[in-house]
């Protein structure tokens, strides 16, 4: 595989959807309008925790232009679950999240929806919906949630524990899992040094720039069309149908261009409401969230508390680790604490460990997936503690990591042995990098941190059609968030030996594309890419058949050569036919050629990354600046290196924001006080330097080109890299994010 010479894969063509996106023609979620369209607006709870006594919609209904009002009474909670590969989705919770039934569980929880002829009328009516609340004490941290006298969010909650335990009364602990290896006590006895720290990270948001938006139209025949901005059109179809008790075959979901997701555009927030409102009024209905709503009611990621105790010998060998992870799930169960537990020691070979992970509900919006869900917060703990051990022992940061780094054949903390992985190569690349070799300037702290993430497989489909002009179209069902169309076109071009500009990549609706799982889990280039490659090879096989027909020879007397079919026994009349030549004879040789493939590959070769951060700290204000940053990552095989670099740079930037400034600031009664981009401080261009990248390529054995997922792992190292840099710059250990100026200044002033 490594010897394979690529022609299209590994090049940097212009993306096919690019011109539409730089000229403003590309249509995103909020860009569609239909004749006669109404506008839906959601009424949201002003309390973080409150029982809903009654809802009076009379005054709202009287507003001119109002066409309908929806409350929790208008559709029943479903008990259905939707199996979706990376974990079944509890639709009862999702349904209750769409519109609160008994209780509002966070500030911003939807309690009603109004549809009117204009946004203004709908907003005015929404203000007039009168909800009688019995306000309850909000639970705003895992510490409070787990106290014996804490208010309980869900009276019926039972801890889903692995291994199983006897249920013990009312609880806010939605889940608990353990990972163990070896003998933890014996392990710590071997240690010359033991470091134990507790780390905290705040609630933070994916921060995609495009708010959630959809348009729904019910056709005269009852079929329902949903246009929406989503990472998973099939998921929107299936979840909406199940929540509303509809036949999924009656729903067609067309994904718009998507303005960022990072996991946050996996759940449904608006679509089922818009379907109900469209059926109620028999008019198209558009719903668009405001930025305020995006912050208050869509997917943040968990605030976390992670305790890690790690022991090592003097030479840096890690001998034992014990950890407890407490992740906020938000209002309903489902934090990524389990993934955090699986990832936190994954880069290192630790003979004895015990990790327990808790999933805890609190009165905040239900967390959604966020890029490598759960891993960054766990890696912060691991990488900070390793940094401290290396520093205390006077060991080189890279040497200590290399000494413990996993290699092929070592068992992952979650069980099976690794296949070929690139972690050591990544660390070697760090050591050889210009950045690492450069001296650290005075007043600067340099931090190193590593990260691990899986590479999801799951179902994907692809269709490749060959035109009589020798061009091809490839149809898949994954919304293109960051250049996956061009990557898929490159794969078709690679397989058929035609120019990438002659391939048209198409993201299709749920009626047109074969079933395909979400654009998430670093899976699009890997899993959907495999379907694209297989579908292209199907085309190739059919082309061989056409050549055999033209030559009047059996199929096995033809063979594929890059871009053409060649006769096994050439003669004057029988010379290789190019794809274009064969395509021009399609009608004469049997009609059009369509190749298809559907796959469900396993989750295999994971991705590793390491980041280097140079941080400058102003000791008088506590303000810090990233002055140099390098991201190193094993991509397996970079299909379009520019977009791989882009994922690495984007992940680094998001992680830097998380580490330095981003956080939900809550009032005592559970109201987010900074629900806007001015106060929820994401990195802007002037906050960052250029972000250098080094792509390492250790081929993934489960993929024909060796592709590993690249989208998620680059957000795993930054929290640790920035925190370690801050520690080295100030001489103080920082264990609580964000490292915002007030917090840093306070520590510097205290001098401890």
């Amino acid at each position, binding site marked *: 595989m490594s010897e394979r010479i690529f022609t299209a894969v590994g090049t940097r063509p212009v993306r096919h959807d690019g011109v539409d996106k730089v000229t403003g023609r590309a249509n995103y979620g909020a860009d569609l309008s239909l004749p006669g369209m109404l506008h839906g607006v959601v009424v949201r709870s002003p309390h973080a925790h409150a029982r809903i006594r009654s809802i009076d919609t009379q005054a709202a209904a009287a507003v001119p232009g109002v066409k309908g009002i929806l409350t929790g009474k208008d559709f029943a909670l479903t008990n259905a679950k939707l199996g*979706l*590969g*990376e*974990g*079944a*989705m*509890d639709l009862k919770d999702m349904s209750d999240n769409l519109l609160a039934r008994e209780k509002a569980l966070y500030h911003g929880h939807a309690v009603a929806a109004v549809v009117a002829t204009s946004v203004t009328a709908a907003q005015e009516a929404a203000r007039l919906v009168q909800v009688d609340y019995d306000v309850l004490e909000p639970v705003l941290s895992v510490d409070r949630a787990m106290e014996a006298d804490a208010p309980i969010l869900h009276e019926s909650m039972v801890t*889903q524990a*692995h*291994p*199983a335990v006897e249920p013990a009364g009312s609880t806010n602990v939605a889940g608990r*899992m*353990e*990972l*163990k*290896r070896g003998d933890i006590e014996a392990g710590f006895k071997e240690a010359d040094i033991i470091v134990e720290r507790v780390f905290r990270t705040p609630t933070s948001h994916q921060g995609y720039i495009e708010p959630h938006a959809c348009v729904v139209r019910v056709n005269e025949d009852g079929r329902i069309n949903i246009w929406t901005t989503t990472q998973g059109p099939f998921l929107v179809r299936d979840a909406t149908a199940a929540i509303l008790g509809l036949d999924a075959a009656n729903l067609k979901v067309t994904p718009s261009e998507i303005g960022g997701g990072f*996991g946050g555009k*996996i*759940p449904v927030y608006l679509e089922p409401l818009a379907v109900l409102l469209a059926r109620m009024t028999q008019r198209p209905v558009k719903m668009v969230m405001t930025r305020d709503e995006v912050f208050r009611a869509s*997917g943040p*990621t*968990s605030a976390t508390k992670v305790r890690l105790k790690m022991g090592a010998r003097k030479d840096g060998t890690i001998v034992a680790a014990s950890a407890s992870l407490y992740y906020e799930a938000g209002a309903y*169960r*489902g*934090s*990524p604490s*389990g*993934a955090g*537990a*699986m990832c936190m020691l994954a880069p290192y070979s630790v003979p004895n460990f015990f990790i327990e992970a808790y999933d805890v509900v609190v009165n905040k919006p239900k*967390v*959604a*997936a*966020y890029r490598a*869900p*759960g891993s960054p917060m766990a890696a912060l703990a691991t990488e900070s503690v390793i940094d401290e051990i290396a520093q205390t022992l006077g060991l080189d940061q890279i040497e200590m990591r290399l000494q413990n780094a996993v290699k092929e054949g070592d068992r992952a903390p*979650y*069980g*099976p*042995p*690794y*296949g070929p992985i690139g972690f050591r190569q990544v660390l070697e690349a760090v050591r050889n990098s210009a950045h690492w070799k450069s001296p650290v300037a005075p007043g600067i702290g340099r931090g190193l941190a590593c990260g691990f993430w*899986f590479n*999801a*497989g*799951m179902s994907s489909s692809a269709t490749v059609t060959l035109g009589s002009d020798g061009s091809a179209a490839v149809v898949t069902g994954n919304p293109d968030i960051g250049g996956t169309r061009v990557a898929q076109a490159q794969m078709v071009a690679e397989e058929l030996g035609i120019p990438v500009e002659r391939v048209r990549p198409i993201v299709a609706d749920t009626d047109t594309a074969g079933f395909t799982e979400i654009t*998430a*889990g670093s899976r699009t280039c890997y899993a959907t890419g495999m379907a694209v490659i297989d579908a292209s090879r199907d085309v190739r096989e059919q082309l061989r058949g056409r050549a055999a027909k033209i030559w009047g020879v059996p199929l096995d007397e033809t063979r594929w050569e890059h871009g053409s079919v060649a006769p096994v026994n050439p003669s004057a009349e029988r010379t290789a036919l190019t794809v274009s030549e064969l395509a021009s004879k399609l009608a004469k040789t049997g009609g059009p050629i369509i190749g298809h493939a559907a796959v*469900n590959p*396993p*989750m*295999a070769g994971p991705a590793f990354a390491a980041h280097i951060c140079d941080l400058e700290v102003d000791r008088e204000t506590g303000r810090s600046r990233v002055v140099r940053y390098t991201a190193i990552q094993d991509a397996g095989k970079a299909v379009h290196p520019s977009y791989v670099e882009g994922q690495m740079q984007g992940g680094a930037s998001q992680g830097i924001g998380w580490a330095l400034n981003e956080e939900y600031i809550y009032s005592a009664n559970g109201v987010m006080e900074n629900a806007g981009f001015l106060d929820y401080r994401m990195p802007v261009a002037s906050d960052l330097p250029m972000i250098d990248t080094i792509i390492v390529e250790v081929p993934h054995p*489960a993929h024909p080109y060796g592709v590993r997922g690249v989208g998620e792992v680059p957000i795993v190292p930054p929290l640790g890299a920035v925190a370690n840099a801050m520690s080295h710059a100030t001489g103080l250990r920082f264990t609580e994010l964000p490292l915002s100026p007030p917090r840093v200044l306070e520590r510097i002033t205290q001098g401890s």
Partner: protein
Amino acid sequence: MAIVHFSSTLTRHTGGLHQITMDAPRVHELLEALVARFPGLAYELEHLAVAIDGEVRPDAAYEALTSQSEIYFVPKIAGGFN
């Protein structure tokens, strides 16, 4: 005979065994046989994915096993949207 590995959290149901070998044509039959022998595993296995030779498969029931197959049980990744 496929080699089945049990993590420390599962050994409480296997009488302390970390590893057994078992003859089963597919994952489906393997799981049935495991639960028949160690009934306590039923609940845990329902919530775990199967890794065959290092490849994690959430939908593994009909995957064929060979005498060399190495089986591990792996937590499913919830990813924050379940």
